[in-house]
């Protein structure tokens, strides 16, 4: 009887395996379902619901123009990468998806996104419509990209105008001035600190490892595309950032528990910190937390006076990609074209506080032209892309998590030395299978 059960089970198992195997064997896009598209959007607004409210009228306009119905799902950042992985593995997913632009090359390497060659760019109005550096995030060097820029973002340093005025301090232009200002504005007894950092967020921390390293003239990857996290400039850059909490004590140790940028924004809006470093979409979040537009302003994140590079941000943003298993390639291309049209860019740029990704685009996220110009300057001239290599995602997790742990050590009363940073970076580097 046991033998018979096993014999019955074997074909079932084989059928199950064959079914699973079939899931991963799609060969490319088609046009079998030309009337509909499924779109996974990332969370750009103040909540998933807010995103839906903003996007729905835009997508309705697309349906009116093309007759293609769009099924929208907004996915939070905590889930988006796993959802995309699952979609790529199973071949069952959306037609079009938003991705963090730093994932561009890693996702390209999976082969799950549609290559955008000359033919596709013809449908999109040409490559030269897009800001070149932003388009470069869509794929590895000398390859056809698999995603195009949708929303541009750049870091800025937001300061509390009143606090600075009361202390008679000018907004800083160098790292040293920033530290001095933060020290002057720190009053531990009153629960006010000079700065607030998302020190428990590996996604934020890895960006600052990169920006500080770039200011030191160091690179995270060698010319042949291997990780080089233990270079002096990288280690010193990380140490400089950690010292804001450790040596200068201008960051509340509790920030080591801030596992996303919104927590530091809230802290800033509540008057618990005078400075935060956030991407320009923080405008909307700061205001929704109770500060009016005239109570805060942004300046470029400063580099040390003797810095090699005045990098103030990584080239942040959101890209738009077509899944290779789409059943509506033509419709998906129309959708990409629509979302990056001047009209849609202007319409979405305001609520999502994004920078235009088109060469002749105008920022609409703020009425303050000075602020808009400053962010456009950072985005266009003082932002560098994170390493455009397939292991970029592993850099984010390994270096970001290592920095989480080092901030936790400092916050809980321990000390992090330069040697500790070297060991942590060597460990992070060794964990990458490039």
């Amino acid at each position, binding site marked *: 009887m046991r033998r018979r059960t096993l014999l019955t089970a074997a074909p079932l*198992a084989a059928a199950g395996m064959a079914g699973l195997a079939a899931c*991963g064997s799609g060969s490319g896009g088609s046009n079998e379902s030309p009337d509909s598209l499924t779109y996974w959007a990332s969370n750009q607004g103040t909540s998933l619901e807010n995103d839906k409210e903003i996007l729905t009228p835009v997508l309705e306009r697309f349906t009116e123009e093309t007759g293609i119905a769009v099924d929208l799902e907004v996915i939070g950042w905590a889930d988006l990468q796993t959802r995309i992985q699952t979609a790529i593995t199973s071949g069952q997913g959306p037609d079009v998806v938003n991705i963090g632009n730093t994932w561009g090359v890693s996702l390209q390497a999976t082969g799950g996104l549609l290559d955008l060659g000359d033919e596709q760019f013809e449908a999109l109005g040409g490559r030269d419509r897009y800001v070149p550096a932003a388009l470069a995030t869509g794929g590895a060097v000398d390859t056809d990209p698999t995603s195009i820029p949708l929303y541009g973002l750049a870091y800025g340093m937001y300061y509390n105008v009143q606090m600075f005025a009361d202390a008679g301090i000018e907004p800083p232009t160098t790292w040293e001035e920033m530290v001095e200002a933060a020290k002057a504005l720190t009053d531990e007894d009153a629960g006010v600190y000079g700065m607030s950092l998302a020190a428990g967020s590996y996604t934020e921390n890895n960006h600052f490892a990169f920006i500080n390293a770039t200011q030191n003239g160091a690179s995270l990857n060698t010319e042949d595309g291997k990780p080089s996290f233990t270079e002096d400039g990288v280690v010193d850059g990380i140490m400089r950032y950690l010292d804001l909490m450790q040596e200068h004590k201008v960051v509340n140790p509790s920030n080591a528990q801030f596992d996303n940028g919104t927590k530091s924004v809230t802290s800033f809006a509540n008057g618990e910190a005078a400075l935060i470093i956030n991407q320009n979409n923080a405008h909307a979040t700061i205001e929704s937390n109770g500060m009016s537009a005239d109570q805060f302003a942004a300046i470029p994140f400063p580099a040390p006076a003797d810095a090699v590079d005045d990098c103030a941000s990584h080239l942040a943003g959101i890209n738009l990609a077509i899944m290779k298993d789409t059943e509506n390639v033509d419709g998906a291309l129309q959708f990409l074209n629509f979302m990056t049209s001047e009209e849609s860019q202007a319409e979405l740029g305001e609520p999502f506080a994004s920078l235009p990704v088109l060469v002749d685009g105008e920022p609409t996220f703020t009425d303050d032209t000075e602020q808009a110009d400053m962010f456009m300057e950072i985005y266009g001239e003082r932002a560098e892309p994170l390493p455009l290599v397939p292991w970029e995602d592993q850099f984010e*997790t390994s270096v970001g998590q290592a920095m989480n*742990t080092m901030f936790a050590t400092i916050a809980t009363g321990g000390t992090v030395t330069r040697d500790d940073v070297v060991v942590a970076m060597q460990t992070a580097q060794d964990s990458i299978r490039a």
Partner: protein
Amino acid sequence: MPSKTAPESTRTPPQSADRPAPRRPRRHLFPYLILAPAVILELLIHIVPMATGFWMSFVELTKFFIRRWTEAPFAGLENFQIAIDLNTPVGQEFLNSFLVTLAFTALVVGISWTLGMAAAVALQRPFRGRGVFRTLFLIPYALPLYASVITWNFMLQRDTGAVNHFLVNQLGILDSAPFWLIGDNAFISVVVVAIWRMWPFAFLMFMAGLQSIPGELYEASAMDGATPMRQWRSVTLPMLAPVNQTMLLVMFLWVFNDFNTPYVLFGTAQPPAGDLISFHIYNSSFLSWDFGVGSAMSVLLLLFLLAVSLVYLYFTQWKKEKNNA
């Protein structure tokens, strides 16, 4: 010895030439039909994923192959070597995670067992309000996991959490507010939350087991002058042995495999002190996109749990048989 046999005509009914031959009995098919849905679901939910995971542990399933995963190159034992190579960060962190999980399991199972037993024995005899206590004790087990662990997350926040408010501001036991979710204290937090969730299960099982112990045994032992402690040791414990045996194994497996508690409690800010093995394997697979190494770690975990379970069952069964002999 005379034998009584029925006449031939009554034993075998006459068969007419045009009557069909009797059909073979179909009763043997019925149990299989009843079992079929369970077998199919078992295959789909347990066996197929397990077999797939086992296969994945022998292939190089990185981001380059997740779309064409049936074409992933055969890696032999390389994934296993990476997982257990203590000269590499991957191996060292896996070992650290294993040791953290061992300590976590020992504490959670041990303390949950003790609390569950104490509460069940305390509520063994009827008294006014017993039902209220029983209900109260079972609440953590009945609450949805996500909701309860996220509440702990709020309570354990350094600046705004209820725990520090209580310990520092109300009772004044501590001078400064400690961190509970980062650093070494993260281990204490995850142990406490897991015990809070697990001990009502032990309590429930012991409570059910105690119902079946005849009251006469306690009366007789009391007549012989046994103290409550002696009664517990010589009556309660032996009578609860079958419940105890199964429950310890189930608790060990659940606690060792606990994914949800660290996942909800720590989120993406996973501290090394709270790096439980299921969570570690998830991160190794999904954050680094290396599903081959992640699967190898899963297979190693499976083999370890299988070995512990077999050794445990061998000794407990052996002991039982020896006692019966």
